[in-house]
């Protein structure tokens, strides 16, 4: 099967400082890839550069479109970038407050992407919003409530519903469970695993937590100092880490 995303020699520099350096990988349809690393390893920079939120300093990202043609993201203008972000991709931020519209109801949050795509039937929008609330385990009776009245875990589930409602082909997730209680985290990870399978989503998820990678991702990349130091099947990396840094990460997981 042909790749959905092809990343080659990708770098992003903040002035003289390296954000990420010379990263290459392929992502296939239906695949969930985890990028693991500590804070400052460049994993979030890489995610944002791949998702065209940051401009690449060098290297390329190519996206395989539905019509079988390849789109070079370096050549995309602002209008094209926004169309892609709105219609084909999704982005889940670490803090749900950054990804939600806090001054409108939960239902409007879920329905916004559908309205942006031109859906103009209120009854239908509302029915879909309720259906998605149910799918992310939020009581549909809360469809008119403000997200500010939700707990942190509920807000994150609402952001997931808002992102997935248009059935994007590719979703980027930046530490979607960081900062939440462990039990809340587990529930969201279960939910993500289920939805990714049901929808056949391709996803790139950034996490500092190897346990998250083990639960969700068949394949994992380990980053340190802006570079990928090890990449492979998640189970192999966890059971038989090759790079000293990965070995350190794995041993610290096992001891906590």
């Amino acid at each position: 099967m042909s790749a959905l995303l092809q990343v080659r020699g990708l770098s992003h520099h903040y002035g003289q400082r390296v954000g990420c350096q010379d990263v290459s990988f392929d992502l296939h349809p239906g695949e969930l890839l985890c990028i693991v690393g500590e804070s400052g390893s460049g994993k979030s920079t890489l995610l944002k550069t791949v998702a065209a939120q940051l401009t690449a300093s060098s290297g390329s990202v190519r996206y395989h479109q539905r019509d079988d043609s390849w789109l070079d993201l370096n050549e995309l203008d602002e209008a094209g970038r926004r169309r892609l972000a709105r219609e084909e991709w999704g982005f889940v931020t670490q803090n749900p407050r950054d990804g939600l519209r806090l001054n409108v109801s939960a239902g409007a949050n879920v329905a916004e992407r559908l309205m942006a795509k031109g859906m103009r039937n209120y009854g239908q929008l509302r029915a879909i919003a309720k259906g998605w609330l149910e799918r992310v385990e939020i009581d549909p009776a809360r469809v008119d409530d403000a997200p500010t009245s939700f707990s942190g875990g509920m807000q994150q589930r609402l952001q997931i519903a808002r992102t997935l409602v248009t059935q994007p082909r590719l979703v980027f997730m930046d530490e979607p469970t960081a900062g939440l209680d462990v039990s809340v985290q587990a529930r969201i990870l279960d939910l993500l695993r289920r939805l990714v399978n049901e929808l056949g989503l391709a996803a790139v998820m950034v996490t500092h937590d190897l346990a998250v990678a083990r639960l969700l991702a068949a394949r994992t990349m380990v980053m340190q100092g802006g570079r990928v130091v090890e990449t492979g099947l998640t189970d192999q990396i966890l059971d038989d880490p090759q790079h000293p840094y990965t070995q350190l990460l794995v041993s610290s997981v096992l001891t906590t």
Partner: protein
Amino acid sequence: MTSDYNFAFLDENTKRMLRRALLKAVAIPGYQVPFGSREMPLPYGWGTGGIQLTAALLGPDDVLKVIDQGADDTTNAVNIRRFFARVTGVATTERTSEASVIQTRHRIPETPLREDQILVFQVPEPEPLRTLEPREAETRTLHALADYGLMHVKLYEDIAQYGHIATSYDYPVLVDGRFLTSPSPIPKFDNPKLDRSPALMLFGAGREKRLYAIPPYTHVESLAFDDHPFEIQRWEQQCQLCGSGDSYLDEVVTDDRGSRLFVCSDTDYCGQRRAEPAA
């Protein structure tokens, strides 16, 4: 005409700058054109944007009408009319049909307008997306890309909260199928009058330094949902002065016992109807 001021108060360079901006606005219907707003002898909120546009438009042969909420006799309307009478010497009128330029706050006259008339709106907030998106750079991008899903989020919220689209003033419109535009705080009752109007419609926001236009016969669509179509206000009463059943009515409290009267908000229209011999 007094010699204390340049004709129409503003200097000729300023008027030229305004006319250029107006031409651009007419060329791109609904697009907000920035302009160098001048200090006017009235505070913001009193129609300084509309006044600057009117000043740039008026010639010695024009006949000016000024209305505020449909009435010619409010303090605001009287002050602006007097101001222009003094600095231009042009004739003024209260009759819609006699005016060549009508400056208005919050209404469109009931009397149908003609091709040889210009309506100038006073606009407090030109950006229809502002309450939803406070960042100016972002709203500009949304306009550039015609990315207007956000406006429907607002209408969705209305229906979710009130069971219907509760927005009744400043109801958002799409001009010429392209630019999302604020019609200024007119009642949505007046929105259908914007669509394919024979008269040129100009909008001026002094504080925000923006002007825009709806040229004659431009298609203007009020946004809505398929299952919640756009509707205008209706009254069960008729005007208790002229008997009109299809004009915009104001509810007037007539005494301290709460007695109420429904009368036309357009005072000229109401007066003309009462002056007509009964048919």
